[in-house]
């Protein structure tokens, strides 16, 4: 069982970020949706800072991108074509 002192498995968390986005590849996801989804699929829950790092890693790798939603004042994330290819989405 995971404890509070366990560190999140970052490579796994990065993959889970993409996996969440792949559930609806034509849609955009808020940070909260990604965090909630990813944490349901990892043995050690990650905090927001770790999830942000995982998202940013995917951004840096060209797998995800975002748009700023002015109405809601938040970034919304989605898989890039490269990210979709990585997830095996045609």
């Amino acid at each position, binding site marked *: 069982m995971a404890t509070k002192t366990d560190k999140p498995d970052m490579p796994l968390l990065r*993959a889970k970020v993409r996996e969440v986005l*792949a559930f*609806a590849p034509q*849609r*955009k996801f808020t940070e909260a949706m990604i965090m909630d*989804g990813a944490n349901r699929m990892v*043995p050690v829950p990650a905090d927001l800072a770790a999830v942000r790092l995982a998202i940013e890693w995917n951004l840096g790798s060209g797998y995800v991108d975002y748009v700023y939603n002015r109405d809601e004042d938040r970034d*919304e994330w989605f898989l890039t074509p490269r990210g979709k290819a990585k997830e095996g*989405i045609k």
Partner: protein
Amino acid sequence: MKARSDSKLKTLPEERQEQIIAWAKTPKSETCVGGLAYALEQLAADGIKVSISTLSEFVSWWSLRARYLSADARAKQVEELLKSKDPSMTPERIRELGQALFTMEALDSGDAETFVNLEHLKLKQDSAKFKGSLDLAKYKLDREKFEVESCKRFLSWFKDARAREIADSGLSNADKIARLRETYFADVDKLEAEGGIHLPE
């Protein structure tokens, strides 16, 4: 979508996956251990050996995916509805609304009809807000005009000996104002008396 190599279960056909979920949801009884343990037993009987953590992760993945698929389907349904009901709506706006509904649905709140109603309500509120902002802008403009006009009058009256005389008199402010009005708006009063102009009450 590609299933990960860390899960044998995600690569199984959809019906098999549904069967596993049904096993995992089986309640405990006198004859059945129920839950994940029961699903593990059944999988093992089918020759599929996985750890409880793999099974647990699969169940989470499956329910999460089901939620997002459902949210996506509902959003598409509303997009189609909006397309047919409101041809004036741009594809971009429809996509935005579909996206907003997807987010709402994914967060387990609302349904298509409620969303459409909410959106109409929002449009009405937006219209009211817009009208309010126009009124406010008009008020600000009127006020600015009034202030500029007052300053202009002050500057012109300041040079006027009669105005200064009234201002320097020992009359009360109310009487000074009355005298100034009589002096400078005499022509307006006259026109009004003759029915030439109608001042608001």
